[in-house]
């Protein structure tokens, strides 16, 4: 066994190990332990990205997928840094478990197996969420929507490749799995972020691998769904519902990028989703990143997406640009983005740093031929 293969295996097992340690640790020290384990997981993911296990059979060699797992690892680090000390052991370990299963789902040779792993992650998360009294209905809603998405993708995969029904079914299922508003999961409350961030990230990464089976209908359906979500966000305004729609704004752009075959742009939007999406979108720095303001990964991803979209379709490009501008204008706070340029909390600083670094490094790696 070579060192890269060992590193890759360790990177997949590390979050599970972290979950076990965090759940076993006493409550006062659990947060510190979780941060250390998640930080080590980030280092391992970066190491796996830099030293891929290219020679090993069965390991995924796609650099975009590897970079996506780095984003998932940083998302986990940010989640545990934002959390306080949790007394519930299962809830404490849930972000680690869901991130581990999401990473495992992305690396499986067959995307169908990845879907099964995602279903397992969903089941575990719902079990943890719905244990308290009064949460059974919410848990059932999560199971229902997630399972519908998975069954749609499976049904699409059973149809002949590159056929229109197959592409449509797969696209609809992935849109539901990615939680794209208004089609996706009824995620709510910050606890859902424990499961939803890696789950939707894995769905985005899986959608890149299903493109071969989906054909043109798959791409078109993804772009249409992303555009619909962007315009819905643009029309929603500054109300609470509009800001809630803004949470999945990078997911919509990422799905458009996947449909336009701009995988690197999708990766940058995935970075924005993992570090600034979900319930973090209410903070000023996160809203600025989500709105594709420079510097940051979503801004660079937006530029890459528009450059690829213009080759794909001019009309879609115009619609996308107009939708993004309208959404950004409506989502900007009244006082503007001038406040809280540099966040005061450590988690926000880490997120901003990673966003800016990714925005610089990914185009650089792209020019160097890494992607």
């Amino acid at each position, binding site marked *: 066994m070579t060192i890269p293969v060992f590193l890759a295996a360790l990177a997949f097992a590390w979050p599970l190990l972290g979950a076990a340690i965090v759940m076993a640790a006493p409550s006062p020290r659990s947060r510190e332990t979780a941060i250390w384990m998640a930080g080590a997981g980030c280092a391992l993911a970066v190491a796996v990205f830099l030293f891929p296990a290219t020679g090993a059979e069965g390991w995924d060699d796609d650099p975009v997928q590897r970079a996506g797992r780095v984003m998932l690892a940083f998302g986990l680090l940010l989640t545990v840094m934002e959390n306080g000390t949790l007394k519930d052991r299962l809830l404490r370990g849930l972000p680690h478990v869901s991130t581990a299963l999401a990473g495992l789902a992305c690396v499986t040779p*067959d995307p*169908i*197996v990845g*879907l*099964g792993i995602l*279903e*397992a992650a*969903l*089941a575990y998360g*719902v*079990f943890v969420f*719905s244990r308290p*009294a*009064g*949460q*059974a*209905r919410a*848990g*059932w809603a999560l*199971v*229902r929507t997630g*399972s*519908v998405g*998975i*069954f*749609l993708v*499976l*049904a699409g*995969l*059973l*149809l*002949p490749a590159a*056929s*229109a*029904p197959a592409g449509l079914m797969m696209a609809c299922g992935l849109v539901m799995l990615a939680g794209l508003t208004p089609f996706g999961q009824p995620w709510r409350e910050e606890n859902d972020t424990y499961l939803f961030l890696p789950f939707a990230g894995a769905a985005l990464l899986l959608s890149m691998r299903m493109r071969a089976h989906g054909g043109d209908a798959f791409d078109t359906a993804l772009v249409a769904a992303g555009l619909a979500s962007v315009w819905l966000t643009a029309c929603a305004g500054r109300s609470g519902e509009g800001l809630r729609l803004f949470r999945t704004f990078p997911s919509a752009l990422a799905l458009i990028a996947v449909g336009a075959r701009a995988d690197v742009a999708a990766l940058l939007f995935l970075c924005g989703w993992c570090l600034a999406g979900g319930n973090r979108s209410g903070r000023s720095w996160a809203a600025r990143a989500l709105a594709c303001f420079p510097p940051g990964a979503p801004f660079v991803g937006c530029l890459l997406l528009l450059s690829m979209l213009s080759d794909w379709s001019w009309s879609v490009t115009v619609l996308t640009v107009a939708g993004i501008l309208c959404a950004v204008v409506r989502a900007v706070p009244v006082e503007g983005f001038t406040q809280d340029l540099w966040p005061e909390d450590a988690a926000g600083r880490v997120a901003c740093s990673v966003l800016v670094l990714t925005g610089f490094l990914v185009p650089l790696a792209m020019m160097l031929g890494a992607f």
Partner: protein
Amino acid sequence: MTLAVILAPLLALCVVARGIGFLPALGVVTAVAMLVDHLAPLQEFGAACVVVFSVLPVWFVSRYQDDGAQERTGPAVPFLALGLMVILQLTTGVPAATAEAAGQHTGAAYLPAGLCVALAGLVAVTCRQAMVWQWAGLLACVDGVMLSGVIENQMMVVGVTALAGGVVAVLGGLCVHRVMLRAAVAPAKGGEAGGPKARSASFDLGEISPAGMETDVAHAAGPEPRGLRPDAVVGPRLRAEVEDREEEGGTPPGRTKTPAQPKPTQSQPSQTKTEGDAETPAETRPEGPGAEQDDLPVDGDEEDADCPVGETLPGKAAPASGTDAEADPAAPSPDAEPEHVVGTEPETSPEKLSPEEPSPEESSSEKSSAEGAPASRRTPEMIARDVWLKGYLSERGRDA
């Protein structure tokens, strides 16, 4: 193409149209469709999974009352599923003659029966509002995708579908257990078997047979309740609440009212109180649903909110009514019905409330301690039960 393959989409349409009752038939037909085509380990595994995922949930849900009352969707849903099936057939299916002429694969794959079943299940999940119906839709999806995977010999798809089916079945069952009321289970007189057979064989899961209710009454002086467990307290209350709601809106077919229950409570309130305090703790609970309906949601969506309700045991549910029924053997007159409503539901039907009807003792037995019950009559168990009940009902309210 076998007859089973053709029947499977039709049964899936029946699931969409009528509910979970057709799911076992769908599962059996799907399993037959798998096994008739080819007998191999993959087919056997798929058939076994399909039967398990189709029969066990129906058996499980038969122990609970129906939640179909909250279903508000129209009759067009099955036609939507049928339309989607036709579209799928037009876009993917190949006429048999054309396919044979072109040398393509022949057999059951011409009709994408599995995907048609899956589509019907997806329609049921999406369009139906009742939780059990959605569960049936998801399980129909499992059947359809499994059938399609077996026909296409996709081992990975079959495995992942089996995993997803297990997840859906287990988590759905847990949710059913938490949000739905248990059906009345009453041991029959004369050694007749009780248990789940006490309910009707139809799929109106909320049915409480008259025989069962008579048995409840007959067991009035039966065994003591098992204790003041939460389900022992709340189960009978919630069942009484459902029955009273039905009495207000007209009794649906298959449901049975309990005419002997309210009358003695009004006619001999002091006896009820005394016996209840001394003997059976279940009797001392607030009899009518009005006391708890202050906290309970009243619309249909929240009717079956998260409630880990235990089964309604005769020793817990019946003693108050049964004992009083024996004490007052006169048959309840139809005139007594509104009086019962007035007496036992002061909060839910204020327009019917007349101030002279409920006696002070009765109201004190119905209300909690905050409404002026004599402190000397309240045992520590009663106080603990009331505290628990308030907390529990507030939990239910939170589910809204």
